[in-house]
């Protein structure tokens, strides 16, 4: 324990021995619409600065917003998938505050009339027994529509961060991109598993949004961003869900902004638990403030203090008319919802024939969708599982990221994995070569075929070369050959190894074995 307020932390178990954590998660999702929320500008990620702006999203005098119909549709579908009520009438509101990356100096958002409210999402975490899973119900307070801000580049100073910068350069391409903000109710009763629940929730939400096909949910590109609210209250016993515990008033919360990976969500909850506990046990009190998460060091630091000065002066947006979704339309949208994730998992486990343990590994790796798509592309479920949970999962783990994000980064697709497997099935690669090809793909050398070609990895299909090698090895090892002739078939393994060596690995071991046995009359 150090002496500065920011650094003082208590051990996690020690903290949990005294306190009960309460979380609130606010997730912002950028919708994958073709155009912005209130104007027809494109939303392409990574475009040249200020090329996707118009009078509306630049906040030019006189410009007026018009709602993107797809934005409303996506918001309703998200609300329905989160088991929310859909408002039969709601309005946009202006949230007034000044900030240079917000062109109108108000954000068009929703205030006390969100389009979706009162829902829940059931998330699964591994059971503590190690067998199967436990379900935690995350209550959703609301999901509402709003717009994103521009992006600032801070110039000057040493760190490139906002502090110390001499000036900033603003690109408004992102300004006005549709956002859905999904706010949970206070999450109570998770006890010491709070960090896991937080991570599982964000992960489940991401899976759900991807299944809805409303967003590309790329946390590393900022299309899904998470703010973590956390407070501690005194522990009232061992059961975090007991009535006695739930009756304890909640403590002062902090809001940690921009926690933008699954790991960080878990880390930020854990860190804030430990930090709050240190402050509280040393007789201090928690400051209600915004905190910044540092992905590199895994800590949060103090940001802006929340004060009365923060007065957003919300009022109904007069430039937009109310949204009143027709009940029949809402039902139509409900019919487009994908299968609920939990139900789907159960179904997929059955279809794929995975054991509970295998399914759990797949879930933990966040590989369900990847495997599903790989199977759809022609691989067997076992092969798909084997490849995804092998090297890609290992590398994702080393890089402190999750499998989906990692695959995105390196450009490994389910169809490539299926292609790899088909090369094995076709006898073009053996297992060891396939692993090398996969490594090549992960290293950015191209698709499986391309890597195999470039690295010269291909099983020799010409039987005469293999036959020559087999004959040579038999001639070199008369003793072993004799044993095999005598019926000790298992001795063939020693010869196969030598044949493979002769072939510099570029041979199908199964075929070599067949050939040896045939030549020695033991087949």
């Amino acid at each position, binding site marked *: 324990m150090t002496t500065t307020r920011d650094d003082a932390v208590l051990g996690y178990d020690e903290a949990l021995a005294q306190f009960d954590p309460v979380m609130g998660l606010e997730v912002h999702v950028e919708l994958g619409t073709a155009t912005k929320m209130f104007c027809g500008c494109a939303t392409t990620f990574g475009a040249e600065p200020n090329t996707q702006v118009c*009078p509306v999203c*630049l*906040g*030019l*005098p*006189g*410009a*007026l*917003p*018009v*709602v993107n119909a797809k934005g409303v549709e996506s918001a309703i579908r998200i609300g329905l998938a989160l088991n929310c009520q859909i408002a039969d009438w709601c309005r946009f509101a*202006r949230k*007034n505050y*000044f900030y*240079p990356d917000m*062109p*109108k*100096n*108000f954000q068009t958002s929703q205030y006390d009339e969100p389009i979706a409210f009162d829902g829940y999402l059931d998330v699964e975490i591994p059971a503590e027994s190690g067998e199967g899973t436990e379900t935690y119900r995350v209550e959703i307070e609301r999901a509402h529509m709003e717009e994103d801000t521009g992006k600032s580049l801070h110039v000057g100073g040493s760190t490139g961060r906002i502090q110390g910068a*001499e000036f*900033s350069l*603003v690109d408004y391409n992102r300004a006005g991109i549709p956002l859905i903000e999904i706010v949970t109710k206070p999450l109570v009763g998770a006890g010491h598993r709070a960090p896991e629940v937080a991570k599982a929730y964000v992960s489940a939400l991401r899976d759900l949004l991807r299944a809805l096909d409303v967003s590309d949910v790329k946390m590393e590109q900022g299309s899904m961003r998470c703010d973590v609210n956390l407070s501690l209250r005194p522990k009232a016993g061992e059961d975090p869900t007991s009535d006695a515990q739930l009756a304890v008033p909640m403590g002062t919360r902090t809001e940690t902004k921009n926690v933008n990976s699954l790991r960080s969500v878990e880390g930020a909850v854990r860190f804030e638990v430990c930090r709050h506990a240190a402050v509280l046990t040393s007789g201090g009190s928690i400051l209600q403030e915004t905190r910044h998460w540092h992905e590199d060091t895994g800590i949060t630091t103090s940001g802006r203090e929340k004060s009365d000065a923060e*007065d*957003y*002066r*919300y*009022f109904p947006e*007069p*430039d*937009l*008319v109310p949204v009143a979704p027709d009940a029949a339309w809402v039902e139509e949208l409900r019919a487009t919802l994908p299968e609920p994730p939990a139900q789907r998992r159960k179904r997929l486990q059955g279809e794929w024939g995975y054991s509970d343990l295998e399914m759990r590994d797949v879930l933990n790796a966040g590989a369900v969708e990847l495997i599903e798509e790989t199977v759809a592309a022609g691989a067997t479920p076992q092969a798909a599982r084997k490849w995804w949970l092998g090297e890609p999962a290992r590398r994702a783990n080393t890089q402190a990221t999750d499998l989906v994000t990692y695959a995105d980064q390196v450009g490994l697709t389910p169809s490539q994995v299926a292609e790899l497997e088909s090369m094995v099935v076709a006898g073009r690669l053996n297992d060891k070569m396939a692993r090398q090809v996969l490594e090549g793909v992960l290293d950015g050398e191209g698709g499986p075929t391309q890597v195999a070609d470039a690295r010269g990895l291909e099983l020799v299909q010409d039987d005469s070369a293999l036959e020559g090698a087999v004959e040579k090895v038999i001639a070199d090892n008369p003793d072993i050959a004799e044993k095999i002739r005598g019926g000790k078939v298992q001795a063939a393994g020693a010869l196969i190894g030598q044949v493979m060596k002769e072939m510099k690995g570029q041979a199908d071991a199964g075929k070599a074995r067949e050939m040896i046995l045939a030549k020695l009359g033991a087949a």
Partner: protein
Amino acid sequence: MSDITRLSAADLASSLASGELTSLEVTQAHLDRTEAVDGAVHAYLHVAGESALSAAREIDGRRAKGESLHRLAGVPIAVKDVMTTTGMPTTCGSKMLQGWVPPYDATVVSRLKAAGLPILGKTNMDEFAMGSSTEHSAYGNTANPWDLDRIPGGSGGGSSAVVASFQAPLATGTDTGGSIRQPAAVTGSVGVKPTYGGVSRYGLVALASSLDQAGPCARTVMDTALLHEVMAGHDPMDSTSIDAPVPDVVAAAERADVAGMRIGVVRELTGEGFQPGVQTRFDEAVQHLVDAGAEVVEVSCPSFEYALAAYYLILPSEASSNLARFDAMRYGLRVGPDGVAAPSAEQVMAASRDAGFGDEVKRRIILGTYALSSGYYDAYYGSAQKVRRLIADDFAAAFGQADVLVSPTAPTTAFRFGEKTDDPMAMYRGDIATIPANLAGIPGMSLPSGLADEDGLPAGFQILAPAMADDRLYTVGAALEQRLLEKWGGPLLDRAPDLTTARQTEGA
């Protein structure tokens, strides 16, 4: 050439169609008139001579080729400086936007261009349309052509003054609480605030989004109708734009028949607080309508008592938010605070907004910020929105008894410069008769009822109609205009002073 500038837009249109006149001649005549009188009137912030002449030549060329053109093609027009125009500055009468040339045209401006009306220039206004006298323009006062020491009304004093001083036959205006109708009233011209949503707001620099409405300014009811028709219509760029056919205002102006119509006199908008000469002309005008076959009923709108209070909460609230975008980051004035070496964005915003906004704008922004702030919202903004409902309900009830409602447009004739600048509430009270229509979103017209006996200055007659019944304004207005013209023996504006001999104001 001065004859040309005395012609109505309708007459100019006929002469252009028949080939008697060319748009180039007509446009040049108006530019010459501006050259002669605008030193005294100061109605324009920007005169776009070259581009107007080039647009005129283009129309003349197209007409020569036999192309079918809009009826008003070639008739020049002045545009209020609150509407965005490519190739011309748009300042809203504010230092904040000095020299700003928008990269897009307001929908209204696009429609004018598409119809082939050469744009003569941009007219003066109270800064960001906040005011009733045009004294709040950062670029100096506009004078009333009837008396150069008096206000031309506001916020659209520039537009009322250009038509009243024959610098343009037509002008555009915007009306948030009377900014088209009150200037028309005090200059002896005609102005209409259409139904909210009838004319696109896209490209009108917003004052109060739920109250603002653009409309036509002219010297006759028919000209006003012709311009109304060009400006109005559904615009997908404005979510509050009404997706329905524009009422046939031109046919209504032609009809000019009030026989059998019920005219409702609003009890709360007459009598006490209204200048005697204004009231007298109003009463006479009502009698003219009776003589023309209309039936007069008295209606009561008790909630109007609270209209001014509600308006001066809703307007500043919306304005405080609408004007937040003027922050020196993307366009407009940027200044740093005095004596700060490397000011932050925050400091530059605050210093620029202090330097760029005038007193009235600051006053209303602060008032609106207060009315919306947490803890006061229900008491102020929330209550005002409820009063607004009461006013709409009063109108609905009144229109159950009458086809149109009438009142004097403004309680007084034009006042002198400086008379009310130190007393904001006195200035605000001048909008008492025009504000209710904006709160309820209904259309209103002002046309001259004559000159007040005590000061010889024009008084205005206001007609209000139910939402989407803008045509009724024109039927009643044209009927009244006919009878008044007969009585006067010619247009009222013929009695205005000859400005070519007027003294030139300095540096206005």
